[in-house]
């Protein structure tokens, strides 16, 4: 366990620091003053504090959130805002989301926690058939726009089948909700606050691998990062790479190695999967002529397919090579085989080379 982490950590974080440091902050990240070094779960915690503090009609609820949550994202909230605004629910995901929809439909900010993204499926009916269609089916007489469902997400080294999943693609086929996934503490805080205040129901996935491992300077004040806006976090001219969440750190490592072999990679963090920022990706691919998408979720039916098909439609005459998808395998997420399952740096690097040599 610790040996594996020890081996993996250098692969994840270069000396240059986490990938945010390569980007120019968008959307009012604030000045360099008022910064504090935070990990992902502390940044989430800070966002929740701000949300509860700035809106008296906001609530945080779910399994075990009262004492601070199993990843500590809700630490201190119940003490500060009271147990009527930050509270445990019975252990029932469909109840949590259904309750949240009712609360949001009454004009509140309902911030529901699903303890692991793997357990969001019991609430799938409430999210897909109810939350997503609430405004549309009522002719805009009612809405549950104040609902945000946040959940830990993605691989963690030892999660096996039910503590490693990346279910984003299931939700990307659902008009009416937004799906948002941050890559770092600074991004997480700004994006989560935008989700909470967005007038549409949002599913917010938090890469749990990064809860404690990703550390960077985060503005202490209130700031929001825009949804449905991708970010070019690394400029390049030979190939465009698109990803989200923790996978971006792996992709960045591949970019660095490719650079040593004379390949210039552009790296884009998609951030919002629906509605997604086609324009930014299209613009990049028109420049580079090549596209590689990578995600931890299984390749078949993964969101990479939507990106790939859309870009082929829009940039067909510009493409110099087939779109590459380097993703998780089409198996349930395995325990001891996790290192073989994951779309590793070298799998990505090999694909970058093949694409450029095509």
């Amino acid at each position, binding site marked *: 366990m610790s040996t594996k982490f020890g081996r993996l950590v250098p692969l994840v974080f270069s000396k240059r620091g986490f990938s945010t440091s390569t980007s120019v902050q968008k959307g009012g990240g604030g000045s360099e003053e008022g910064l504090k070094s935070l990990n992902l779960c502390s940044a989430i915690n800070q966002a929740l504090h701000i949300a509860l503090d700035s809106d008296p009609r906001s609530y945080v609820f779910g399994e075990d959130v009262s004492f601070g949550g199993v990843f500590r994202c809700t630490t201190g909230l119940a003490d500060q805002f009271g147990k009527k605004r930050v509270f445990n629910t019975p252990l029932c995901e469909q*109840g949590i*989301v*259904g309750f949240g929809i*009712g609360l949001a439909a009454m*004009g509140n900010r309902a911030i529901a926690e699903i303890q692991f993204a793997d357990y969001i499926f019991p609430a799938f009916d409430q999210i897909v058939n109810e939350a997503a269609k609430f405004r549309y089916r009522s*002719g805009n*007489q009612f809405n549950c726009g104040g609902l945000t469902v946040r959940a830990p997400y993605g691989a963690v080294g030892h999660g096996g089948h039910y503590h490693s999943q990346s279910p984003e693609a299931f939700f990307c086929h659902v008009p*009416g909700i937004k799906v948002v996934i941050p890559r770092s503490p600074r991004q997480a805080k700004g994006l989560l606050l935008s989700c909470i205040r967005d007038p549409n129901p949002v599913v917010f996935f938090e890469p749990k691998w990064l809860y404690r491992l990703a550390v960077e300077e985060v503005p202490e004040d209130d700031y929001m990062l825009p949804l449905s806006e991708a970010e070019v976090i690394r400029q390049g001219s030979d190939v465009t790479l698109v990803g989200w969440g923790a996978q971006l750190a792996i992709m960045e490592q591949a970019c660095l190695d490719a650079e040593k072999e004379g390949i210039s990679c552009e790296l884009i963090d998609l951030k919002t999967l629906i509605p997604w920022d*086609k324009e930014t990706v299209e613009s990049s691919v028109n420049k580079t002529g090549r596209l590689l998408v990578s995600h931890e979720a299984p390749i078949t039916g993964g969101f990479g397919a939507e990106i790939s098909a859309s870009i082929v439609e829009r940039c067909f005459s510009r493409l110099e090579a087939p779109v590459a998808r380097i993703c998780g395998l089409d198996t349930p997420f395995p325990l001891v085989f996790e290192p073989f399952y994951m779309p590793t740096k070298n799998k990505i690097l090999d694909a970058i080379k093949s694409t450029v040599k095509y």
Partner: protein
Amino acid sequence: MTSWLLGRSSRILIHQQQQLHKGPFLNYNSSCSSFRSTEPFRCRDALPGKNSSPTLFRFWRHESTKAEAQLELEQDVTEDDPKQIIDFPGGKVGFTSEMRFISESPQKRVPCYRVLDGNGEILKYSDYVQVGKEMGVKMYSDMVTLQTMDSIFYEVQRQGRISFYLTQMGEEAVNIASAAALSPDDIILPQYREPGVLLWRGFTLQQFVHQCFGNTHDFGKGRQMPIHYGSNKHNYFTVSSPIATQLPQAVGAAYSLKMDGKSACAVTFCGDGATSEGDFHAAMNFAAVMEAPVVFICRNNGWAISTPVEDQFRSDGIVVKGKAYGIWSIRVDGNDALAVYSAVHTAREIAIREKRPVLIEALTYRVGHHSTSDDSTKYRGTGEIEYWKTARNPVNRFKRWVERNDWWSDKDELELRSSVRKQLMHAIQVAEKAQKPPLEDLFSDVYDQLPSNLQEQERLLRKTIQKHPKDYPSDVPL
């Protein structure tokens, strides 16, 4: 239950609270979310003791606890030494050396509360909330209106003028009497067989017709099947087809009302079949634990399409499920408008005053087919249907009572039925001539604003329509 009795219960509660604060008892904590259950009969012995859990006093709030205690006696198990009580995390529990399993249901089923007998006479010693002439006449008129709506709309669907319809036949009393017992501020989360609540609240016949025709005047913009009504003005959440999803939503809405300090509750309806959905379990449990002011009204009409109740559950109906969740529950004759009115009126008061959920199981019978897509004679006898349609008809029963009070006459009846029929016929003519919603309503309201992918799709569709106009219906304005 009379207001007087409620008042007495409240005074008892206040008395107990005062006593608790004065003496060695634990302080009563209203936010205590864990209702510790125990033998209610034993509570009486525990009451004078120093070690009584304050939450036990919840039993003494309501008279029905006595009746419940008596019922429980039938299943009483002899305790060993009564002094040997262990305070488990789930509450204080005595011990027994007798191995006895609690049976699934007592021999005697939970009785069904009623006020009017089959002849529309108030039963002797009936405990009910008074209904005056104005209220009584309006209740009856709305039941008749529902009946008339049903017969006309059903025929209109058979003629292919609307795509689908679902009647309320046999359940008019549950609809109208429930609505009459509520305040306009109470939030309604319906299933689909409760348009009577919306009718009571002032939704016009014309608006009902517009929704069924899906025209430009439909608040829902023509997006949902007929009978999926909704109105924010009337605090009636838009109906959706997935069963039972509205139940945990009602708990969230109720929690919001509680936090806002509103003198209102959420009221949500479901059929007996819906209680088999996981969302029913979620809602009941959340409502109890969150101490949410919500009234659950279950229309147990004996059928879920072709599935009879014996293929749905093996418990004594729905009312017994409330107790398992720690929810006050009552079974009521759903064909008795006065019983429904009284039960809902009282349940509402309890929910709001005590910030807790209440469950009402209204026993009734689905006289009509499940919907216009169903022929119920394929799975049940016509004799059974006729019996409930005639001998047990809720509208007829209430009519007898209203007539006996000299509030209603044959002349009034003829005038009302004729008037409603005319209004409906006119409303249908108006709706049938109205345009469909504009094409842009296909795309709007998916989100609060139109995202770029939908903008693109709308542009593409409009080009296609321009190129192939004959492929598309001409009554949708572009």
